[in-house]
Structures are given as structure tokens and as C-alpha cells.
């Protein structure tokens, strides 16, 4: 059986931070900087005014002039959600999660750890997640998620046994298919055709579904019948995260210099253990509040600062507002970075190799700050202390 964990309005609560009492008032997530002018998650009090996520800001404010807009904090939400996933892992679960606020894990392998039954697993989950989480149990991810959405405050756990699955899914609205990003447009089309429930979807013959809707239609048909892909648990993260404060509204060359510094610091972290980097995420905290985060997967795993810089620097142009700090996080490591010899080198490689070995030994003896280099951050600044910083000495031979 699959357990779905649903924490409603998670992104909104994360953005509110210490001001969670505001959640009792009409509050909504402000539009993402650089995105469309639509509100994000909304509080229950805002919903009472007819405001729903995705509604245009103007319409939301006209429905409720007292509505407060809170800048979204995707970086903070991700950090909090990582903690939640860590708690699920602490009871033995191997969670899969694509979005903060929703997670799935298989319960069958955990029964032995928690008294031999599903009830023990659910009790342990409830113990580590608290009362705000809604739990749904089903034979597949989709059934479990539907169960979690049907729970209520008084009965925050709903178990759909395999034999009751069809009866449970049949009356549910097709709008639940929107839980899959690839099917987000399908429910509207189905509703226009008069197909309003998952039961009606399940009754459509497979060839007809394939002919009219193609692959998304077949996917929807599988979900309506309770079939879903198996869970792909996340790999427990090895957080390597560096952040640098930007002293003023930095832009252009200053941002690129800050990025150089972050790359150097990430590559110098001992947690890397000689491995290359496969996926990273650039993040920023804005001067006006709120955060921004952009994952970047390298075409080829690398530990070469120049190559990583080439992949990341153009993304700085996507930064939608002045930032007060810039961050770089390793999302996935690649294979160990290998030395690679060249046919015609002229001894440069050898010299770099010796220099790197000397730096490594110096760091081993005296810590990470033993070998540093001067990095010009803003060489033309009128303030001398802004012109240069000390950055970790780069590893010169880690070109996989």
C-alpha cells in the first residue's frame, strides 16, 4: 500500500514564516517575481471570499480588498519540506516528492518496524508529522493522493482498501487529474464533453481514449482505474550549499564575480570528496523580500569551474529583481572527477597537478582556508573593501 502525505497550503505557511497567525486572515501568495500576475496558494479565510489559486491579482483584490499578499519563498519552502521528508525517512519510509506539500511512500516494508500492521505505520507517521498532515492510503500513488484530499479535519487519515478502490474513485471529480502536471489541461476538456467523474473516465473504451486524447488520455484512464507508476524514492540529500551576501544592488559583472566565488567555495567543500557536480541550483533572496531558485543540470558532470561557470552564468540574466544574497547548492553529484591527460600539453598539466597536490596537502594540514586566491569582485568600486575577496584556490586538475 502507498501512503500519501498532504500538507495543505504548505508554500503559503512557509512564506509566512513566524507570522503564521496571519493564516487565519485573508492571505495569498503574491505572484512570483517575473511570473504572471496571479495569486498562489490562498488561506481558508481568503477562499471564503471566492479567491482560488491562479486567480488574477486584480480580481482577487476586488473580491477581498483586505487581502494580504505575501512574497513567495520557494527556497524556504524547500528547506522546510526537506525537514518533513527527513522525518518520514526517520521512521524508515523512502519518500517520493515532486512538490513541497505532497509526498508518497510505500508502507508495506515498514509494517515489521511498527508493530506488524498498517495502523502502526500510520501512527508512526502521524507522530513525526503532527496533526496538520493529511494521510491517505491506497494501492497506488493516485488513489492514495485522492484519499488524502478527501480527508477532513476530524478524520485526517483515510485508508482505501484494494476491494473498495473502484467504489471510492468512481464519484470523484475529474479535476483531481490535475495533480499530474502533464494532465493539467485534460479535466477542462473532459468536463466540456460532459465527463465529470473518474468513474465516467474509467468507462471510456481504451481505443476511443487513445484516438481522442493520445498518451495523456491513456494515462488518465490508467489513473481512473487506480493504476499508477511505482514510487521512485528520492535519494537522501547531501546538502552542500554556499551563500554570499551581496552588499548592494549587484548586477552584471558583480553577480558573475559572486557566482565565481560560490563555485570556488562549493568545489572546495570537503563533502564533495573529489566527485564531479551533475546538478546545481542557483538561488537568490530579494531585497524586497521573497526568494528565487533555478535548478540547472549540467549536460556533462564536471568539477571544472570554467565549465560550470559557462553553464550557470547565463542563468543570472533570469534573475527577476535586485538580490541581497546569492546562493549555490549542489543537487546531485556525478562520478569522481578524473585526471585527464592531453596528447600535447607542454607540461602545464603536470605543473597544475603538482600545484593542486600542494594545495591539497596544505588544506589537509591547516584547514580549508589554508590556500586562497584573490578574486576581484568589483575592481572599479569606489570603496576599496568591495574590490576583492579571498576565495578558495581552485582545483586545477579536476576535469572529468
Amino acid at each position, binding site marked *: 500500500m502507498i501512503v500519501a502525505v498532504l500538507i495543505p497550503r504548505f508554500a503559503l505557511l512557509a512564506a509566512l514564516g513566524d507570522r503564521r497567525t496571519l493564516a487565519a486572515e485573508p492571505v495569498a501568495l503574491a505572484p512570483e517575481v517575473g511570473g504572471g500576475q496571479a495569486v498562489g496558494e490562498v488561506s481558508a479565510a481568503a477562499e471564503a471570499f471566492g479567491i482560488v489559486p491562479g486567480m488574477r491579482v486584480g480580481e482577487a483584490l476586488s473580491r477581498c480588498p483586505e487581502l494580504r499578499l505575501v512574497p513567495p519563498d520557494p527556497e524556504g519552502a524547500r528547506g522546510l519540506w526537506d525537514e518533513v521528508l527527513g522525518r518520514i525517512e526517520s521512521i524508515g519510509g523512502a519518500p517520493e516528492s515532486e512538490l513541497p506539500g505532497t509526498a508518497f511512500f510505500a508502507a508495506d516494508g515498514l509494517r515489521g518496524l511498527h508493530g506488524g500492521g498498517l495502523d502502526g505505520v500510520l501512527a508512526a507517521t502521524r507522530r513525526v508529522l503532527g496533526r496538520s498532515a493529511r494521510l491517505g492510503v491506497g494501492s497506488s500513488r493516485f488513489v492514495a493522493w485522492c484519499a488524502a484530499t478527501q480527508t477532513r479535519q476530524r478524520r485526517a487519515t483515510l485508508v482505501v482498501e484494494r476491494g473498495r478502490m473502484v467504489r471510492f474513485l468512481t464519484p470523484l471529480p475529474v479535476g483531481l487529474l490535475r495533480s499530474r502536471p502533464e494532465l493539467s489541461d485534460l479535466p477542462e476538456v473532459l468536463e466540456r464533453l460532459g465527463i465529470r467523474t473518474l468513474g465516467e473516465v474509467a468507462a471510456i473504451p481504451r481505443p476511443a481514449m487513445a484516438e481522442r486524447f493520445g498518451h495523456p488520455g491513456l494515462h488518465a484512464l490508467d489513473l481512473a482505474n487506480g493504476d499508477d507508476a511505482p514510487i521512485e524514492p528520492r535519494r537522501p540529500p547531501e546538502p552542500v550549499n554556499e551563500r554570499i551576501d551581496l552588499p548592494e544592488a549587484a548586477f552584471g559583472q558583480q553577480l558573475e564575480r559572486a557566482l565565481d*566565488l560560490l563555485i570556488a*567555495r562549493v568545489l572546495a567543500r570537503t563533502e564533495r570528496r573529489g566527485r564531479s557536480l551533475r546538478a546545481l541550483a542557483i538561488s537568490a533572496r530579494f531585497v524586497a523580500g521573497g526568494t528565487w531558485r533555478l535548478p540547472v543540470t549540467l549536460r556533462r558532470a564536471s568539477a571544472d569551474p570554467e565549465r560550470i561557470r559557462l553553464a550557470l552564468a547565463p542563468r543570472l540574466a533570469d534573475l527577476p529583481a535586485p538580490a541581497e544574497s546569492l546562493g549555490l547548492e549542489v543537487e546531485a553529484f556525478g562520478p569522481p572527477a578524473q585526471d585527464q591527460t592531453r596528447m600535447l600539453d607542454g607540461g602545464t598539466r603536470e605543473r597544475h597537478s603538482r600545484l593542486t597536490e600542494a594545495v591539497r596537502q596544505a588544506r589537509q594540514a591547516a584547514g580549508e582556508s589554508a590556500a*586562497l586566491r584573490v578574486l576581484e569582485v568589483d575592481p572599479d568600486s*569606489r*570603496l*576599496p573593501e568591495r574590490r*576583492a*575577496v579571498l576565495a578558495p584556490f581552485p582545483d586545477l586538475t579536476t576535469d572529468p
Partner: protein
Amino acid sequence: MIATASARRLGAPRPVSIRVDAHGLPEAVGRAQVEAIREDWVVEDRWWTRRMLRRRYFELVLEDGRNTVVFHDVTGGGWFVQRS
């Protein structure tokens, strides 16, 4: 594990003891008398924020022949020596 510490900056200002004359111009840096003021200039920055920065810099020649750059922090107060 998040490292939020600012990078180690080079050329950060260091507090210094300065004696000034009636016009607010430096007369001595520590125990060394000022022989001449070669240049002075004002730097203003972040005036659009609450942490406005306003410094009056002096390039000095001291009695022992050293060339030194000091500044007076007009907003926060205090004198600092800084590598220019």
C-alpha cells in the same frame, strides 16, 4: 549545511586614532604628525537605503614619510585607515 558568512574581504577598513584640528582636518595619525594632506574626497553610497554610507577620505603624508589613506565615517562616526 549552509555557509552564510560573508566572504573574506580584502582592504577592509580598520579603526585608527586620529587627532583633528579646529576644522576637522587630521593633524596626527596615532603618534605620527601629518605633514601634508595630498588630497581629500567624499564617497557616498547606498543613499537609497537605510544603511546610507558617507565617508570623507584623506590621503596624508606623515612625518615619517608614509603615505596613508584615512577616512571619517560621517554617518556612523569614527576614523578608519584603509588601503586605497
